[in-house]
């Protein structure tokens, strides 16, 4: 599906753009003069509703798992288990646990980890999120810059060798799963050539492999997207007018065509962020990076309820918020949608 990587955008870029444009236009026509404000309010409202929904789903799913968090350890006497449950509030009815948790959450207390004794969920999340954010942020940055650049180059050299080569590379790039890229890069650079470190994030050099593995797929996707939207833009009449007016080629590309061509790429930033979060699970596991993705997988496996709740809600908040920001940004940037 969707937010996941291979939410395929139309090769002409019209697929992703069209979906968004139709939906937004549908909403636009029913709004008044201050359409933008009410749109923002509506989007934020939906975002909150979605986060609420996710928290409910997560909570009840985690409680579906029979056994609970204490069953995997050595057999304990039932009264010890009962005492532990009482201590962590696990003996109360489900809905009460949920309300307790959400109440604490809203006050900033994300609960205590059941497995890593002594550490609160706040600690864990706050110490590990910056790590993931660094790797993810770098990956997004590189993917966008390189993708936009290569897409423009391919569009400018339409039909020539550079175009074909770039298209082949990017088609392969969207087909190869991220763990394959990560493993192959690790084999080539870490094992055979031995020039790049493969574990941890101690030196700046050790950032290269994880960021490259994470950025590979989005870069290929953005290249294709940028190429098709740039081709569309370059065929428009206003470009012809500008060329006739004698505008320099550089200015033509970066001022006139780029502004319109980059809109589908901005639309893609939402799914891109979702991909980066989920991609971080894989990349952090392979390269042994102490980030939030790896933590998420670990705490699900060990059924650390409060930590799973906090991490899921935290990640979901980040994603949903980013999507709202991107949607609002998109609306602000594209004047065809702002005006009625």
């Amino acid at each position: 599906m969707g937010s996941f990587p291979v939410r395929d955008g139309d090769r002409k870029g019209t697929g992703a753009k069209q979906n968004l444009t139709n939906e937004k236009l549908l909403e636009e026509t029913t709004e008044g003069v201050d359409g933008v404000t009410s749109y923002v309010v509506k989007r934020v409202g939906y975002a909150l509703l979605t986060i609420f929904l996710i928290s409910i789903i997560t909570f009840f799913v985690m409680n579906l798992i029979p056994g609970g968090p204490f069953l995997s350890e050595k057999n304990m006497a039932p009264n010890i288990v009962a005492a532990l449950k009482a201590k962590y509030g696990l003996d109360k009815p489900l809905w009460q646990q949920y309300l307790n948790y959400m109440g604490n959450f809203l006050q900033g207390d994300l609960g205590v980890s059941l497995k890593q004794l002594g550490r609160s969920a706040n600690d864990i999340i706050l110490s590990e999120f910056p790590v993931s954010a660094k790797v993810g942020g770098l990956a997004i940055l590189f993917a966008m810059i390189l993708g936009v650049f290569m897409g423009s180059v391919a569009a400018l050299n339409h039909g020539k060798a550079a175009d074909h080569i770039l298209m082949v590379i990017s088609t392969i790039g969207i087909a190869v799963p991220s763990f394959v890229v990560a493993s192959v890069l690790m084999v080539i650079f870490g094992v055979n050539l031995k020039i790049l470190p493969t574990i941890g994030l101690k030196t700046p050099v050790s950032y290269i492999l994880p960021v490259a593995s994470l950025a590979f797929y989005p870069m290929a996707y953005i290249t294709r997207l940028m190429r098709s939207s740039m081709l569309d833009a370059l065929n428009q009449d206003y470009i012809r007018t500008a060329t006739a007016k004698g505008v320099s080629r550089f200015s033509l590309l970066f001022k006139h065509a780029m502004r319109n061509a980059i809109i589908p790429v901005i639309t893609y930033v939402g799914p891109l962020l979702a991909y980066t979060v989920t991609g971080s699970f894989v990349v952090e596991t392979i390269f042994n990076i102490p980030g939030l993705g790896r933590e998420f997988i670990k705490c699900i496996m060990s059924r650390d309820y409060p930590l799973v709740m906090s991490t899921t809600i935290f990640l979901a908040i980040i994603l949903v918020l980013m999507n709202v920001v991107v949607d609002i940004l998109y609306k602000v940037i594209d004047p065809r949608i702002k005006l009625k």
Partner: protein
Amino acid sequence: MKKNPLSLQLDTSDFLPATPEEKKELIVMRESTTFWKDAFRRFRENKIAMAAFVVIILIMICAFVVPNFYPYRYDQQIRGSEDLFPMQYSDMELKSIGKGISVFPHFFGTDAFGRDIAARTMIGARISLLVGIIATALVLVIGSIYGAISGYFGGKVDMIMMRIVDMIYSIPDMLIIILLQVALKEPLTNLFNTNPAFANLQSLGVGLISIFITFSLLYWVNMARIVRGEIMSLKEQEFVMSARALGAADRRIILRHLLPNCIGILVVTATLQIPSAIFTEATLSFLGMGVSVPMSSLGSLCNDALEGIYSYSYRLIVPAVVISLIILSFNLVGDGLRDAFDPKMRN
């Protein structure tokens, strides 16, 4: 007689009536063809898509047919043949060859337990393809019906249904999938143990069943949106109006008239959904949440290979190449189909 090029005198032989052969040459119309014939002809002309299609057929043969004839099973542990490199024979096998018994070579070597990697890769490809196709079939059915209902009725119904779609769309799917995977493991294991009817599902492992369940819960939204768009543009046409005038029930109109007209876009979207499903399944198997041992999926094969990556890199390369080929071929075929069905690309 040489004709002076500047003379205005006409040549009377130009004005003779045309022969039937000359008349035929003037007709520039193409022979009539149906939508499907035209689309498939265009697909066949697209060499890349055809090549990818052939690759898919080959992989399917290797995944579904060959393992039944292959001398090694995926879970067969051959003592003494552990950790072989591709095309290498173990000492025991060399002795057998010396005695004159023919031993089938291990094309891709064996893993740490003595299992033939070629056999495991083929079974892995089978699992990945099965997941992709079944998940896409589920998505197709749920998504198209939901989208058709939403698009056909319009108004309030449409608005509510699309709001639900928006909300499901914005849920981070990987998170929920992983959660559900782990959560459903024990209830499903209990179900399999108590109910003997699910015997062959058990061999797939609870991980895969959870994947199917979560796919059908979350992944249909894209298909629903696309189908809704198509239906909304189709329902204004006259054949719908005439069907309604003849008194056809809504259900009949949707199922017999509207949806069959969407088959083109349904096929394209489904073909592009398959690699997405395989992608997700491979990533989940890689993280350890897909198939259970000893069944192998391409993702779990890559995961196993990571441990011995320094000494036995071939164990990673083989499943990685296979899964990339599968995803790439489906993407190319999907692109080719979309171009073939798109009326704007006709020349």
